[in-house]
Every structure is written in structure tokens, then in C-alpha cells.
């Protein structure tokens, strides 16, 4: 439970549209940085890693719909640029069979790629400092997932005014409603108080579940990294030995 696969129809239009915009922007910059030839050569690898993430998302570990993401280990194996494209592909495939919404592919990609990109950099940093595989992988995964969970909470909190509108929608007239702005409240102080109470409840549910998820994913990613190190250490591209 490091993140929620946000469904369609929950977030305001301006928020998910911004998600798409930022995603395209980052994707275009990364694509320029890597170069078309390199992406093309590594497409099958990207496809396989993305497929492994899709499979990971399909295997429930415990009965609270928790599944492994494998984003951090994929980030370590693919590198920070390709993992972005891989998470985009994963989110599109997952959205195509109802696991996360289509309108929120941009936001889900941004949240999930934070795990892969930060996981890669945290791992490289911790490895350089400690030269020990287990603590480096576990800490990198734990920290990356924690940041991604808080990003998800941040994204959800940005849409609070929209939820208020939906909650009070039964008193409004008409069938349709398209809100492109943030939806300013008439009484900001009162509104802020309401939002805070609601968000606190949401955070109180998500964070403890997330914490279990960070630990589980951390342990599983560490064990996977150790397994890969035993069989194909070259894939981890480590400088020096391991302890």
C-alpha cells in the first residue's frame, strides 16, 4: 500500500489534466536525454520489466489487496530514465483492465515513477556509503515508498474542494458539472477546517497500511536483490564487492 491506483471520476479535471501535462513534459525531456536509439535497443528489456511489474500487481500478498510494485528493483535494473517509461506503460496496461483509472494515468505514473527513480538514487547513494546490499536495498525501498505515499496523499489533498462539491452535490441542480478551476470556497476558514478533518481521517487510514506496505516491499525487494546478486551480480551494476 505505498500508493493508491486512483480510479476515474474521483479527482477534479484540472488535477488529472495537470498530471498528464507534467507526465508528457517529463517523458519528453527524458526521451531527449536517453536518445531514440538507446530506448529502441532497450525496449524488449523495458517490456519485460514492465510485464514483471504488471504480474507483481496481480499477485496479492495479504488479503487487504496489497501487492508488490517491484518499481524499486526495476528502477535499479533499468535506471532512472527508463523506469519512468516503464511505469507509464505499466499504468496504461493496468488501467486497460480496470486497475486504476484512465484519466489518472498521468498522476499514477508520476507517483509510481517517484518510487523507481528515488529508489535508484537512494540505492546508489546508500551502496556508496555502506557497501552492504541488504541495508542499502531495504532503506532505499522504504524511503522511496514513503515519499511516494506522501506524494499520493498530496495529490489527493489537492482535490479536497472538489470532494466537498461532490459531497454537497445532492443539493445542486442539473446532471452535469465540469469544474476546471480549483473551486474556491465562500468561507475559506470554515472550509479549511472541514478539509483538515477529512484529510486527517484519510491519512490515518492510509499511513498505517502504507507503513506495512513499505516494510513488506522493502523485505521482498531486498530478498529479490540478494537472489539476483547470487545468480547475476552484473545486473545490479555494483561498484566493488558485497557484504
Amino acid at each position, binding site marked *: 500500500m505505498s500508493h493508491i491506483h486512483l480510479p476515474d471520476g474521483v479527482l477534479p479535471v484540472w488535477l488529472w489534466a495537470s498530471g498528464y501535462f507534467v507526465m508528457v513534459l517529463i517523458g519528453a525531456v527524458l526521451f531527449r536525454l536517453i536518445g531514440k536509439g538507446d530506448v529502441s535497443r532497450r525496449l524488449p528489456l523495458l517490456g519485460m520489466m514492465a510485464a*514483471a511489474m504488471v504480474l507483481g500487481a496481480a499477485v496479492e500478498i495479504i488479503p487487504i489487496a496489497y501487492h508488490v510494485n*517491484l518499481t524499486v528493483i526495476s528502477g535499479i535494473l533499468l535506471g532512472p530514465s527508463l523506469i519512468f517509461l516503464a511505469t507509464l506503460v505499466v499504468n496504461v496496461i493496468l488501467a486497460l483492465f480496470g486497475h486504476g483509472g484512465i484519466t489518472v494515468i498521468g498522476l499514477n505514473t508520476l507517483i509510481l515513477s517517484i518510487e523507481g527513480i528515488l529508489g535508484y538514487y537512494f540505492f546508489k547513494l546508500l551502496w556508496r556509503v555502506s557497501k552492504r546490499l541488504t541495508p542499502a536495498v531495504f532503506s532505499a525501498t522504504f524511503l522511496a515508498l514513503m515519499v511516494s505515499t506522501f506524494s499520493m496523499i498530496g495529490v489527493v489533498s489537492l482535490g479536497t474542494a472538489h470532494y466537498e462539491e461532490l459531497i454537497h452535490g445532492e443539493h445542486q441542480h442539473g446532471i452535469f458539472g465540469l469544474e476546471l478551476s480549483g473551486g474556491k470556497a465562500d468561507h475559506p476558514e470554515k472550509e479549511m477546517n472541514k478539509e483538515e478533518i477529512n484529510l486527517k481521517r484519510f491519512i490515518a487510514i492510509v499511513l498505517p497500511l502504507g507503513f506495512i506496505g513499505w516494510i513488506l516491499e522493502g523485505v521482498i525487494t531486498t530478498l529479490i536483490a*540478494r537472489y539476483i546478486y547470487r545468480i547475476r551480480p552484473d545486473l545490479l551494476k555494483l561498484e566493488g564487492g558485497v557484504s
Partner: protein
Amino acid sequence: MIQLSYLDYSAVEGKSRLHRYSPMVKMIGMGLVLSGVVTLRSLTGLLLLYAFLLVLFFMSRIPLKIFSLTLYPLIFALFFIFLSGFQIYFILLLFLKVLCGSTGVVLLLATTPYPSVFRALGKFLPGLFVTALFLTYRSVFILLEVFEETEHALHLRGGVQWRHPWRTLINISNAFGHLLIKGIDNSEKMYESMVLRGFKDKIHYRGE
């Protein structure tokens, strides 16, 4: 993940009227459903949309096993209930929006083969991205085969036993580690064979 094979089977083997419509028409229809999900603010409107999608679902004679896929996103929607202070109107509105979105997507994929969807997407998305989508989809089936073999090996080594959580975690992790290594090996072979067959950044579909 087993449902993915069912989706594929239903999309390829289905003979209903919806199966015969062109992928582009169905994708435009999906776009309309999503616009409905985003803009509709009344329970009646959303209920009508959901009822319409259900009628289409059952008229298309899609295997009932696939229907559970449309309910899966409700797990994630549950978290948003805590934002609302458990107001029935909000919960119903949210659930209906989520159900309409997921039913529409599953309906599209259960009546349209993936290659057709990717070909239609290729008309307005970058070629490399569509190729990545197609290769991922193909790789899911390759990895599923590896996963099935690994499951047998996992079972012989104790498998998943909740009485021994640490052993279980090691087994699951080794299985995923094995899956990743096999996947990487396969991807290298796949790239070599694609190059041998003239692959240049784009996969061409039948009829192009």
C-alpha cells in the same frame, strides 16, 4: 492475472455485435463513457450510464468471470469514503463513477483484441510508446509461462504457508527474482530475433 487470458480469449473468440464494431468506434465510445464519468454529477445519470454498460456487457456474452475485474477498483475507492465523512450520496456517486469507468474499460478490452487497440492508439501516440505497450503485453504472457513453472518449483519448496511467514517471503522473493532474471534473458533473445526480422523502432500490425 488469469483474467487477462480470459479477456484476450473473449476479445478474439467473441462473436457478438459489439465484437464486430471497429476498434476506433469502440474507443470513441469509451471516450464518451469517460466524459460521462467526469462530468455527470447526479446519481440518476450515473445509474443510467452504468445500466447501459451492464446491458452491453451481458449482450456481448462476455464470460462472467471477467465481471469481477470491473469490481476491483472499488477496493481503492473505499479509501475515499474516509474523506467524505461517510455520506451516502458521496459514496454512491463515487462508486458509480468508478464502476462506470472500470466496466467501460473491461468492456472495450473484452470485445477488442489488444493488437487492434494498440494499432488504433498508434494513430495518435508516439510509435515507440505503442511498441513498448505491445512488447509489455507480449512479455506478460511469456512471464506467465515462466511464473507457472516457478509456481510448481515454489510449491515443492514449501510454497506459500502463512504459518511460516519468513519462509513464505523468501519463496515469493526468490520466485520474483527468478522471474526477473528469466525475463531479462528472454528480452535479450527477443531483441536479437526482432532485429533479425527487420525491427526498426516500430512493430507493424497485420493489415497495415
